[in-house]
C-alpha cells in the first residue's frame, strides 16, 4: 500500500509540475515585474529543481502529514483538508449505505424473479441510474424539490435535511450498479453445481437462497463496494460544488479555478490516499470472510514465522 501511495504522490506531483503559464504571475495582481515574480517564486521555493521540490513535498506528507500551504491564500492545506474531509466522508458513507441497503435487495429480488416484472422493472430503472450524470440529476432534484416544491434546501449544510438531496443524487448511480452486480452475481451462483446438491438434499428454495446462494453471491460484491467508494468520493467533487457543501471536493474545484496548484495536488492525493485505505480495508474484510483467501493468507503467515 505504501508504495502505491508514494507512486500516486509522485505521479500527481509530476503531472502538475508541468503546468504551463505561471500561476504565480496571476497571484501578484496587475502587471508584476519579472523581478517580483522571481522573488515570489524564490520565497515559495518554486525555483528549486524538480527532485528537491518533490522530495520536500513527499517528506512533508510522509513524515509530518503536512501538505504545505495554499499558493493563493498561504493557509495550511492540511488543516483545511482535515476540516473539510468529514463532510465529504459523511456524504460518501451515507451514499454507500444507501447503495448497500437499497441496491442489494433490489438485485436479489430481480435475480429471484428472473424475467418477471420485478426483474424487468428494477433493471430498467437501474439502467437509467447508471446512465444519468450525477450532477444533472442533482440539478433536476433541486429543480423539483427545492424550486418547485420548496421542500428541501438546495444549498449549504446544517441539519439532516441538507444532506438528503446531495446523497440521493450521488448515490443513485451506485444503487443502480449495486443492483445490477448483485443480480448478475446471484444468477451465476444459482447455476452452480452445489446448488443442485443442496436441492438434492431436500432443501427448500428459500433456505438454499439464504444459506448457499447469497453468501457465495455477495462475496464478490464486497470488492465492488470498495470501488464504489472511489466513485462516490470522486463524485462529491461536483456534488459539493452544486450544493455548496464545504468539503474536499469543493476545495479542489476552488483550487482549479484559482490555479492554486498545491491545493489541487494535495486534494487529489488526499482523496487518493483515502481511497487506497478504504480499498485496503475492503480487501482485508474480503480475506477475512472468504475461507479460500483466508487460508492462503494464513499459509503465508505461517511460512513467514517458520522462515
Amino acid at each position, binding site marked *: 500500500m505504501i508504495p502505491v501511495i508514494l507512486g500516486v504522490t509522485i505521479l500527481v506531483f509530476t503531472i502538475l509540475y508541468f503546468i504551463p503559464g505561471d500561476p504565480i504571475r496571476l497571484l501578484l495582481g496587475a502587471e508584476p515585474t519579472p523581478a517580483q515574480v522571481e522573488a515570489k517564486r524564490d520565497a515559495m521555493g518554486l525555483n528549486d529543481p524538480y527532485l528537491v521540490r518533490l522530495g520536500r513535498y513527499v517528506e512533508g506528507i510522509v513524515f509530518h502529514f503536512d501538505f504545505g500551504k495554499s499558493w493563493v491564500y498561504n493557509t495550511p492545506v492540511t488543516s483545511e483538508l482535515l476540516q473539510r474531509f468529514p463532510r465529504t466522508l459523511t456524504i460518501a458513507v451515507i451514499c454507500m449505505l444507501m447503495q448497500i441497503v437499497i441496491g442489494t435487495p433490489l438485485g436479489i429480488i430481480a435475480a429471484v424473479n428472473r424475467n418477471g416484472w420485478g426483474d424487468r422493472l428494477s433493471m430498467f430503472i437501474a439502467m437509467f441510474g447508471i446512465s444519468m450524470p450525477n450532477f444533472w440529476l442533482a440539478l433536476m432534484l433541486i429543480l423539483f424539490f427545492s424550486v418547485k416544491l420548496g421542500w428541501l434546501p438546495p444549498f449549504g449544510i446544517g441539519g439532516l435535511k441538507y444532506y438528503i438531496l446531495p446523497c440521493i443524487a450521488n448515490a443513485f448511480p451506485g444503487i443502480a450498479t449495486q443492483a445490477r452486480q448483485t443480480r448478475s452475481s446471484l444468477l451465476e451462483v444459482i447455476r452452480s*453445481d*452445489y446448488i443442485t446438491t443442496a*436441492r*438434492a438434499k431436500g432443501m427448500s428454495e428459500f433456505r438454499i437462497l439464504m444459506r*448457499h446462494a447469497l453468501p*457465495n453471491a455477495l462475496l464478490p460484491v464486497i470488492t465492488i463496494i470498495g470501488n464504489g467508494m472511489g466513485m462516490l468520493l470522486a463524485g462529491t467533487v461536483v456534488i459539493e460544488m452544486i450544493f455548496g457543501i464545504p468539503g474536499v471536493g469543493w476545495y479542489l474545484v476552488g483550487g482549479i479555478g484559482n490555479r492554486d496548484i498545491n491545493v489541487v495536488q494535495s486534494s487529489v492525493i488526499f482523496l487518493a490516499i483515502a481511497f487506497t485505505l478504504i480499498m485496503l480495508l475492503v480487501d482485508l474484510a474480503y480475506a477475512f470472510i*472468504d475461507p479460500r483467501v483466508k*487460508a492462503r493468507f494464513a499459509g503465508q503467515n505461517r511460512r513467514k514465522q517458520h522462515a
Partner: protein
Amino acid sequence: MMMSKNDTFLSVRDLVVEYTAEGQVIHAVNGVSFDLERGKTFGLVGETGAGKTSTARAILRILPDPPAKIRGGEIILDGEDLLKISEKEMRKIRGRKVSMIFQDPMTALNPIMKVGEQISEVIKMHNDIPWREANERAVKMLERVGIPGDRSEEYPHQFSGGMKQRVVIAMALACSPELLLADEPTTALDVTIQAQVLEMINKLKKDFNTSMIMISHNLGVVAEVCDDLAVIYAGEIVELGSKEAVFDHPAHPYTLGLFGAVPSLAEEKDRLNPISGLPPDPSHLPEGCHFNPRCPYAQEQCLKEKIPLREIGPGHFCRCIRVTEKEGKYVILG
C-alpha cells in the same frame, strides 16, 4: 416386469424428459422403463448425452425447470408415484429416502461452507434433533468414509478430489437412504482413486442395504458393482438384463459396439474398434431406430418403424428386430 412384484422397490415406466432451448426441443429421455429390486444395484450405461443423468435427476425431480420438463411416465418408489406428489412431499424424500452422488466433486460442494456443516445440514433437515447431535453424526459419517473427524471443520478447497467425493458420498448416505443414485461418481477422479471410491461405495451400500442406480459410461465400473444393467442410447433403453446376461451374451449392435471398443488385457489387438459415427442430435433424432445411421446391420425396416423392446431371453431384453438366438448366442440374422 422381469422381477417378482413384491421385491420391486423402484419402478420407472415410460419416462419422457424434454429440454426446450432457443425454440428447439431436445428429446433427452424417450420412454425409459426399468425396475429395481431392493438392495440391488442397477447400472445405466451409455455415452455422454444419452439421457442417463436426466433419468436420474428426474427421479429426484431436480431437473433445472426452465429448460427441462418431465413430459410423461411414472416413477413408482415403494408404491408411491413420485411424479404425482407435491414439491413439499418430494423435499422430504430428497436426501432421506433417495439421495444422489454427483459427477464432479470439485464443484458439488459449497466452497465457503465447512465440510462438516454441509453434512450435518442434511441430517438436521430430516431429523428433529439438536444441532450438536447432528454435528456428531456428521463427524461419524466422515469417519465412515475414511476422513478423520477433526477435518469436519475444514473447507472443501482443503481436500483433494477423491476426498471431496468421499464427502459427497458421506452427505448422500448421512440419512441412510433407501435408494442411492450415483451419477458417474468416479469419472472425474484419478484411476488409482477410482478403485478406492468404488470399493467404498459398494461396502457402504451393503452396510446400509441401500438400493443403487449406478450411472456410468465405463463398462468396467458397471461390471464391478452392478447386478443388472440397461444400455441407453439416444434416450431409450436398447438392452436390458442381468449383468451376466448382457456381458456374456450382448445382443444389441450398440452393445456389441461398446464391448468391441474396450481394450482387453487378454487379447492382442492392433486397433480398438470404436463405433463409427457420432451420437445423434437429440433435437433431431433419426426416424425409426435411433441407432440406424451407425448400425452396420441396418435394414429398410430399421429406418422406418419404431422398434419395441423385445424379450430375447429370460429377463434379457433388446431393442433390435434383427437379433435372434442361435445356439445359445445372439446373432444378427444374415
